[in-house]
């Protein structure tokens, strides 16, 4: 890597993540850059979440390297990392029936914001995130009273409120109806169009084809392909990755059944 001008974005090189005896991710190399929406695809247990957690330093890596803008992620203080990268984990439990605005404001944690005393840039960022996710009307509502679709928007707004240049979302549309899947993907697309770089774990290849600029395919802890949808998405790939029979014609994807 060029020492003078390190590549922008999140970069993982030969990353290996282990848990006890098991190797969850082996020698994974990928890059997440501003202005690009990447879909991370792979069957359950392929190691997608472990790859993400390892790449952003939430799980210690066994070997390899990962960092943001050339800086080793393992040496970055959590708050500085959080100002560069917002992370939306797969499990999003809310411990308390907090109001929507407070949950969104937690996205400003790394900027030093304290709930109930938002000032200046923090307050503006929270208002922008609420507006972007169409949550202004719900801002004072308790999150315990929201529907699944509304909650998904709250979590997106929480991630956007950080105003970090990078976003990693682990299954952001799981358990959402088709309408809300589009809503959330549109929000992520808008974030990328504004100059952000996003990586989302998706299970719906059709949805991924519609939104993503790049596909990273994973199986058995390895990245098996990384490139544009046109380059990497094929009927053979669907069979190899998921064990399903599918048809790919241009931008149209159809999954017909198990192989």
């Amino acid at each position, binding site marked *: 890597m060029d020492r003078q001008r390190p590549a922008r974005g999140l970069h993982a090189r030969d990353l290996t993540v282990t848990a006890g005896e098991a190797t969850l991710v082996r020698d994974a190399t990928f890059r997440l850059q501003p202005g690009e929406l990447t879909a991370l695809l792979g069957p359950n247990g392929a190691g997608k979440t472990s790859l993400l957690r390892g790449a*952003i330093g*939430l799980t210690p890596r066994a070997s390899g390297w990962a960092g943001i803008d050339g800086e080793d992620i393992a040496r970055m*203080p*959590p*708050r*500085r*990392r*959080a*100002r560069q990268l*917002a*992370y*939306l*984990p797969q*499990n*999003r*439990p*809310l*411990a*308390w*029936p*907090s*109001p929507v605005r*407070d*949950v969104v404001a*937690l*996205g400003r*944690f*790394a900027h030093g914001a*304290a*709930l*109930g005393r938002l000032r200046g840039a923090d307050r503006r960022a929270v208002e922008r995130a609420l507006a972007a996710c169409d949550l202004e009307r719900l801002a004072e509502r308790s999150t315990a009273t929201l529907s699944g679709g509304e909650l998904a928007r709250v979590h997106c707004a*929480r991630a956007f409120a*950080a105003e970090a240049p990078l976003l990693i979302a682990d299954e952001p549309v799981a358990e959402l109806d088709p309408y809300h899947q589009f809503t959330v993907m549109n929000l992520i697309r808008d974030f990328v169009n504004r100059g952000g770089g996003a990586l989302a774990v998706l299970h719906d290849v059709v949805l991924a084809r519609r939104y993503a600029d790049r596909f990273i395919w994973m199986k058995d802890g390895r990245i098996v392909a990384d490139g544009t949808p046109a380059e990497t998405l094929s009927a053979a790939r669907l069979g190899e990755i998921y064990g399903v029979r599918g048809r790919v014609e241009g931008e149209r994807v159809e999954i017909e059944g198990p192989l």
Partner: protein
Amino acid sequence: MRADFAALVLACLAALFAACLLGSTPMEIERVLGALLGRGDPGDQLVVVHIRLPRAITAFAVGAALGASGAALQGLLRNPLAEPGVLGVSAMASLGATGALYYGLAALSAWVMPAAAIVGAITGTALIAFAALRTASVVTLILIGVGLSSFAGAAMNLMMNLAPNPFSLADMINWMLGSVANRSFLDLGFSAPFLAVGLGVLFATRRGLSALTLGEEAASGVGLNLRRQRLSIVLGAGLATGGAVALAGVIGFVGIVAPHIIRPMVNHDPARSLLPSALLAGLILVLADIGVRLMPTVTELKLGVVAALIGAPAFVWIAMQRRSVHD
């Protein structure tokens, strides 16, 4: 909210004053005020400044420590049923204190008692926090707390069984039942540094408790240093609870009840619940202790007994209100 907070502070001051006013020797307000300001009859001064005031402040300090520890542990474990008493932390602190009494170590130095209680409390809190790393289920943690309490109880019973003389037996029973009777400013002074540091640590790290609302993974995602946060709460709650137990023995449930009342008033934010919970828990214990003193019983009731009689049903009620979906 600001008005509520001011009202709470005023209520605390009023309760502390009432504790100086009320008691077996009736006294007018002027005499109490005079004694507090260092004037008036030496007999009044003895009663007010050397007996009633330190007792009231002890009750308040113990309540504040338990209330803040309860609120902080609830934030850390993300469950409204967490509390030093329920998690076995108080019992472990009490075991430390009775152990110091049993082995006669307490006679060596006035610092031994609080130190022993704090070692017990931090051991208990650390065990719970360590278990919390391995399981997300708070039911498991509370069961571990039950185990710790039982163990500490059995060990204390063993020491009572083997108690060398009735005096040390009475001393130990005092600690196990919980009381603030006959505490002096000197006693308070030996626990005060631990209480102050413990509460200081809890308040300094309270913002991380807000972040934990999102769950541990998302909290690390927004920039929380999870390990440091856990360690701070374990240390802070351990010091505060240990200091409180060294002063007053085991006083349970106040650390659950106070935060439970405060939480809806602060938008369920654990960080903002810390200080009001401390004040309210202090207020509750000062009032309960006034009740204990005024109750026309032959021997004075123990504050810890009364707190449990009121607090335990409240605990059961709060537990029954919980929807089973959480875990």
